[in-house]
């Protein structure tokens, strides 16, 4: 297995009075796509937010490229080349599509070649270029959220439920986009409830339950073991398409 680009060791996170993560152990191998699976409330989103520094880990360590980033401010985590696409998409609704992307390209104006690739993958973004992003459909907003994350080269993408509420055609488009990123130099950690999507894309899988990581495996091995899926997720990938 490739060396871990990102690793979490014994990470605990409290949100107010609530103890959400109870010693999360996670390795995200360089250059692949790791799926983070688990039932609702398992702590998947909290894990991504803790990595980004949006919620502070109360114990344990988050390491990126060997460097301890547990105490880094969110902006500094992002500057290491980690992009985050939250479940809510968090596009800036009052800003145009263009302004959303200009803002996301922190090092300067977006590069023409990169924009061309984004438009080829998500043509709606070109069509609605000067439209306030709040007027886009749910699928288009998700495209914009992903485009914003990849408008510049990133080392690691953290994506929370990218297919939630999307039409099958758009999901297929997302799969192609993530494959393209995966084949490049980008490592992905994706939280997903759509198991068909997860199986088609994932190289490795980590399963969470009740704030803990309870299983880590290759996606092929996990997909082949229906009894394990049933035990960890309460359903099997074959029956949940």
């Amino acid at each position, binding site marked *: 297995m490739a060396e871990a680009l990102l690793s979490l060791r014994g990470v605990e996170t409290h949100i107010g009075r609530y103890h959400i993560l109870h010693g999360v152990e996670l390795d995200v191998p360089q250059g692949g796509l790791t799926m983070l699976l688990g039932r609702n409330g398992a702590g998947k989103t909290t894990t991504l937010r803790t990595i980004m520094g949006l919620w502070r880990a109360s114990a344990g360590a988050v390491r990126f490229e060997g460097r301890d980033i547990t105490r880094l401010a969110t*902006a500094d985590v992002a500057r290491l080349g980690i992009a985050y696409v939250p479940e809510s998409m968090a596009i800036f609704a009052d800003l145009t599509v263009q302004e959303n992307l200009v*803002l996301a390209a922190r090092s300067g104006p977006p590069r023409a070649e990169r924009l061309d690739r984004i438009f080829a993958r998500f043509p709606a973004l070109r069509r609605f270029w000067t439209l306030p992003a709040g007027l886009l459909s749910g699928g288009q907003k998700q495209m914009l959220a992903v485009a914003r994350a990849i408008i510049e080269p990133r080392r690691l993408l953290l994506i929370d439920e990218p297919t939630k509420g999307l039409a099958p055609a758009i999901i297929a488009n997302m799969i192609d986009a993530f494959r393209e990123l995966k084949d490049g130099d980008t490592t992905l950690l994706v939280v997903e409830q759509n198991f068909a999507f997860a199986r088609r894309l994932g190289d490795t899988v980590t399963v969470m339950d009740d704030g803990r990581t309870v299983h880590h495996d290759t996606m092929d091995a996990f997909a082949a073991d229906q009894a394990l899926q049933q035990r960890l997720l309460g359903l099997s990938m074959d029956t949940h398409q």
Partner: protein
Amino acid sequence: MMPATETTSPPLRPSGAPPHAARGEEGPPPVRARRDIVPLLLVPALMLAALPLVGSPASWVTLSVAGLAMGLMIFVMASGLTLTFGLMDVLNFGHGAFIAVGAFVAASVMLAMGPWMGSDSLWLNLAAVAPAILAAMVLSGLLGWGFERVIVKPVYGQHLKQILVTMGGLIVAEQLLKVVWGPDQITLTRPPALRGAFIIGDVAIEKYRVLAVAVGLVVFVVMQLALGRTRIGLLVRAGVENSEMVEALGYRIGRVFVGVFVVGSALAGLGGALWALYQETVTAAIGAQVMVLIFIVIIIGGLGSVGGCFVGALLVGLVANYIGFLAPKVALGSNILLMALVLLWRPQGLYPVARR
């Protein structure tokens, strides 16, 4: 795979045309946004509606200019507060302190430059007023910086505490103003160049109101350009919507917070200086008195929206002047009524800001 080396596109203006499509792609034409101009049309609609009620065109013009001038001065004072609320989610009841400090500092500088203020030379008058306004902005901005660091920062995200602590800050600031400048009101006389009126036929337009309109419009245009055409403006607008996501894009939004707070305080100082010259008296309560109007304006406009604040301020100024002329007894409550009507129509204000 995304290429490792890429060519740079020309700088993108925020309102620029869509870049070229990927080679070979023929899609449908770009879609253009339609601007929501209905709230903006309320201003001329209100002015036209008032014309037959006022009766005399000359009085109508005078009232309209007075309303616009008052509205624009309120806009200058309120614009910082609406941005502060939108970006930092801070209910700053202490904003009036910056207005009062601006008024006192400007009054002190102008009084110290008595001979120039009393001169018949326009240039000497301006030479006295300009540094007074500059000093008001600088000191209010500095006070804003200290206020944010000491009073506001510890209570980010806690609205009830914000109200209590900023209200307390306003009371303390008022008392400190009395300690420094004394408890009596300061009487200020406008310089000769800003006294009197332009007479056009039957219409008399006060010179000072023209200046107030000009300053207010300049502030509005500069703010619109800064917010719409610069990266820092993009950051502020994005931060108003979702500061967490701005952080996640790699920007240290805390610095933007402080910058906006200081600029908002400086604008309050500018507004205080203009208001002091408008009222020709300065008291420690000058800021607190105008805060009611400011809150009405930012609520009408939509909390966090500079454009909404502009339209709301004009409506408040015009309604105050028209109602004050037509039915003085109800003038006091006219702006509350205006706010209620606007909120019945648009509960989030004229230009609601999208929120996370």
